């Protein structure tokens, strides 16, 4: 068939590009099928990626969009820390620390493998997955009370897990010793490693088939193609500078400025407050991902994302701020800040272009962690899951009901039948939330209500349901939606309602009610016409 290194005609490049995309998806499927933790295989709180030798994102498996752009940042950090010369075939790196390329929080383990073909570094394969426990002060590792990062678990500072093909046994041993769920860790770790090696084999085959030069040319061409697609989309946006201020539950004011020019999209977060001794800090890379989400949704909502897609985007942060925090700052609940930041940039622009963006959605991961002993098996269980909620209406349609938040994508809820068997809770109900809100010419979608009756003698609940107690915003005259919250009906008759809790003790017979909000409405409710 084709001679290796044949002149890279556009069809050869297209064939290589679609093969790289297929490899990304294959890695994703492999990780999903073999992971040990429900948060990975069911919720799909994971991502996979392939980068060029310098860490420029070439392809990502589907999954969580805010995980798509983690791998490239992690690779860049590994290269900066270790130097290209020291990276050898058979190496495999692990990191989870935002200051060492981990981007998110310590629960998210990033594995990176340099791919060599005929002695040359040609690419990296990587994946990131949320492990249910990595030690720290609370089960599940994400405590709302954490005041520094050491309370959030084991820090893995971009070290080798394999060196020239040999496992670095002490690192494995340290990891095993620092989790409450060592069996899950072992399974998740091997699932991640296997997926990377699978991608490695496929990439090596591809490079052998078409040659290194054509492979590199295909990646470069893909970057240029995506950049041009983004720029074409950017030119369709109305130029201008937009600002929005938002006061959080802690009284701190977040300010975002977005400047849209024909060739540049700038998100300026420099006016945001200082980092705090709370787990709501977000690494600079994490803030960039929030900006990337909205930039991509506005310029090119298609699924292909690579390094080129984001070339016209500039994000400005201030070192020492909540979006560019110092190394010791805790980040366990970073995702609530990131979804709130996505929501803030979204809101800022939606006011200016209500035809291009929907009204506000429930804007929270609604992270829910429940741990205890399964009363049927006696084995420890840890539920770690986000919740579905209501989305805002658009200019042309009602909002969708009961879907995961904007930072999520191919994320799946856990069936009640499986939850009952695995966790030993009784799911009392799972229905749409009928709370009023979100009226408009087009109505906000409904949130959801899920009830767990605790069957174990005791269990512990940690939740983070939106850093802001406000309701999803309406647009163009539409009304605000309804809030997210959690209620506990105690078996002795008491009732508690809250949005944040850490390690709240529950007893047999208590009922936990997880409630997510209705999205914002779009347009004047008086103009609503029933189809």
């Amino acid at each position, binding site marked *: 068939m084709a001679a290796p290194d044949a002149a890279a005609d*556009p069809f050869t490049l*297209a064939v290589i590009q679609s093969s790289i995309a*297929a490899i990304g998806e294959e890695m994703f499927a492999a990780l999903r099928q073999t992971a040990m933790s429900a948060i990975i295989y069911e919720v799909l709180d994971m991502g996979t990626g392939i980068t060029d030798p310098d860490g420029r994102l070439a392809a990502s498996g589907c999954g969580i969009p805010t995980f798509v752009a983690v791998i490239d940042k992690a690779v860049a950090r590994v290269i900066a820390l270790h130097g290209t010369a020291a990276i050898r075939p058979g190496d495999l790196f692990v990191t989870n620390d935002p200051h060492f390329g981990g981007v998110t929080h310590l629960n998210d383990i990033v594995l990176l493998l340099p791919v060599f073909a005929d002695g040359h570094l040609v690419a990296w394969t990587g994946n990131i997955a949320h492990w249910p426990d990595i030690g720290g002060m609370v089960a599940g590792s994400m405590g709302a009370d954490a005041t520094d990062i050491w309370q959030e678990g084991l820090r893995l500072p971009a070290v080798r897990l394999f060196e020239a093909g040999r496992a670095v046994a002490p690192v494995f041993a340290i990891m095993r010793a620092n989790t409450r769920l060592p069996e899950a860790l072992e399974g998740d770790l091997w699932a991640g490693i296997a997926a990377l090696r699978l991608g490695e084999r496929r990439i090596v085959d591809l490079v052998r088939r078409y040659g290194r030069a054509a492979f590199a040319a295909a990646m470069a061409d893909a970057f240029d193609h995506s950049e041009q697609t983004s720029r074409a989309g950017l030119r369709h946006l109305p130029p201008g500078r937009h600002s929005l201020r938002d006061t959080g539950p802690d009284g701190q004011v977040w300010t975002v400025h977005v400047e849209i020019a024909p060739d540049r999209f700038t998100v300026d977060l420099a006016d945001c407050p200082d980092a705090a001794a709370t787990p709501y800090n977000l690494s600079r890379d994490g803030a960039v991902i929030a900006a990337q*989400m909205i930039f991509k949704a506005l310029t090119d909502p298609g699924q292909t994302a690579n390094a080129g897609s984001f070339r016209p985007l500039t994000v400005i942060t201030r070192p020492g701020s909540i979006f560019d925090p110092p190394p010791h700052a805790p980040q366990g609940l970073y995702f609530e800040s990131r979804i709130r930041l996505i929501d803030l940039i979204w809101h800022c622009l939606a006011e200016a272009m209500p035809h291009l963006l929907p009204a506000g959605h429930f804007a929270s991961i609604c992270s829910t962690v429940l741990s205890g002993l399964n009363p049927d098996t006696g084995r420890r269980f840890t539920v770690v899951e986000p919740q579905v909620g209501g989305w805002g209406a658009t200019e042309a349609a009602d909002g969708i009901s009961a879907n995961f938040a904007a930072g999520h994508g191919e994320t799946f809820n856990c069936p*009640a039948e499986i939850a009952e068997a695995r966790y030993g809770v009784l799911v*009392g109900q799972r229905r*749409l939330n009928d709370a009023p809100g979100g009226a408009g010419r087009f109505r906000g979608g409904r949130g959801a209500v899920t009830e767990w009756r605790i069957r174990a003698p005791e269990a512990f609940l940690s939740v983070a349901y939106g850093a802001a107690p406000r309701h999803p915003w309406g647009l163009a005259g539409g009304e605000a939606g309804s809030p997210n919250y959690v209620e506990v009906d105690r078996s002795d008759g008491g009732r508690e309602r809250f949005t944040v809790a850490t390690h709240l003790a529950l007893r047999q017979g208590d009922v936990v009610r997880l409630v997510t909000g209705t999205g914002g409405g779009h347009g004047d409710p008086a103009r609503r016409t029933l189809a």
Partner: protein
Amino acid sequence: MTIRVATDVGGTFTDLVSLVVDPATGTQSVRIAKADTTPPEFERGVMTVLGKAGIPLDRVDFLAHGTTVVINALTERKGARVGLITTEGFRDVLEIARGNRPDFFNLHYRKPPPFVPRHLRRELAGRISFKGEELTPLDLSPLPGILAEFRAAGVQAVAICFLHAYAEPAHEARAVAAVRALWPEASVVASHQITREWREYERTNTTVLSAYVQPAAARYLGRLKSGLTEAGFGGRFYVMQSNCGVETLEAVAETPITMVESGPASGVWGAAALGRLIGEANVLALDIGGTTAKCALIENGQVKLSSDYWIERTRVTSGYPIMVPVIDLVEIGNGGGSIAWLDALNKLHVGPQSAGAMPGPAAYGRGGSDATTTDANLALGRINPDYFCGGEIVADMPAVGRALDALATPLGMTRTEVARGILRIANNNMVNALKLVSLNRGYDPRDFTMIAFGGGGGMHAAALAAELGVRKVVIPAAASVFCAWGMLMSDLRRDYVVTRVADFTAEKADDVAALIAETQQRAHAMFAAEGIAPSQVRFDVYGRLRYQNQEHSVEVPMPAGPLDAAAVADTTARFHDIYQRHYTYRLDVPVEFVGLHLVAAAEVGKLAPSPLRPTGRTLAATVKGHRSVDYALEGAHDAAIYDGDMLEPGMRFMGPAVIEQPGATTVVHPGQQVTVDDFGNFHIQIAATEG
């Protein structure tokens, strides 16, 4: 005289294959025919094709039938109005679904709407635990009121799905009986009649969709059966299922959703049956039609099924689950009618949009201005413009030229270069799909023989095989009606998938053994009701095993004998091996049993095809001529053109060549050798490639 007939209703054509055996001499004759599909009265096309083939219906003793009536009712939204009755607190499960958003950068994502609106989703109190124990008794007292409201709202079919009914269906069975008693005219189905697997959204949706298609399917099958009876047919009538088996009319009418993928299933089953006939146990089946290409893997003669099946699921929308055993295949929007297009930045793509039958490829001359894969094949001389669609359509070559120019001009290329590009991109899409069923699941395509069929199978198979390292391609003699051929080779088959979680240890093995025995009894009872003795029923038993705490399980064959400690150890070892093959590693943690997959099959008078007798015709007599054929990567070559219907067993020739038949064209690349086997199938030997 024994006459067996299969008819397959496809999107465009209704196909027929019949096998007639003279018991005295043992001589067989095969007859094939095609007629137009006639929506919405599909039975007309069936009667037409039976007439066209001259089948003496009064003498037919076996008739298998495949139909798209179910998938059509679903995709065209032409089913019944359904009311859902479910467990208290869970009526919105159908709308909440799984909450995923595959089009993840799109903030305007639309969630697929449920098939039952909220006001027709009702609840009854009553709970069963995941262990199958009753927690709260079923309260049927609101049922008369619910049904009265359903009637008033025009509901025609009732779906019932309760939590954990897979473990204990008693509540569902009582509700079904009560609905039947209160409202005998309505059709009613409960989840346990269709599946015994957990996951309430998937099971509820499956039940709803079965109810949705039930009246239409029953009407269609009823009309067909009476049409056949009026025409004198008194033999056994079977309907093709998505699990590669056939089923009785009575069983299908109750849960018609199991027919949803019967067409593709019969094609893959045909490939497996053909593989057994010609001694190929490991097969990659490839079916290229007008709008899609489908591929599946057959290992040791066994097809693979999955109950993780979804309709309308694409890269940008989540679709709807149907939890029934369906042939495990990968389908991509890449067929003969797939449109080649340029994006805003002049990058060439092929599919998934299809020109369909109307207007069809530009070459149809029906006003289609988009270049399709078929047009590229014509432009490159791979399809004969003078023998297009078996000579039934005059290829509009000026239209093909114009369609290719529309792509070539912006790209600054020639028509030929663009046509080659279309072919390469289309082929690469199919290579990626074939990798999904092979490499992606731990199988090396070099260990498999490709059996390719459908209108475009032979056109692309040789190039795809070379790219994947497959050494041999087989194009069946009946390639153009291969799905109908597959039905003719089918058994009466039932798949029982039952969720039951247990530690897989010698101590707990009795529970598993009891489950197997209980399920086998259920199967025997069903077969016995149709007059099939237990001795005629063959079982294949698979355990769904996983590492404790994992979710996704692996199917492992269970031993035939007693499940003692040694058998458990053997099965566990086999699990580790299969797991490692698929996922490259193994773990030292306890193994868990999650469920049973029991395959129960009974032969219903299947016939083994017998070899053809050569007439002594010379190879030269089969050559229609020569023409220049462009092989894309290998450039243009002068190729011999063979009349496929004239080729006889034992004939042998080298590529470059093209084999033309009325419904199929086979492209043979330079250096590839073709041999015609005893049954008239073409075997293409692919030269070993580097890498």
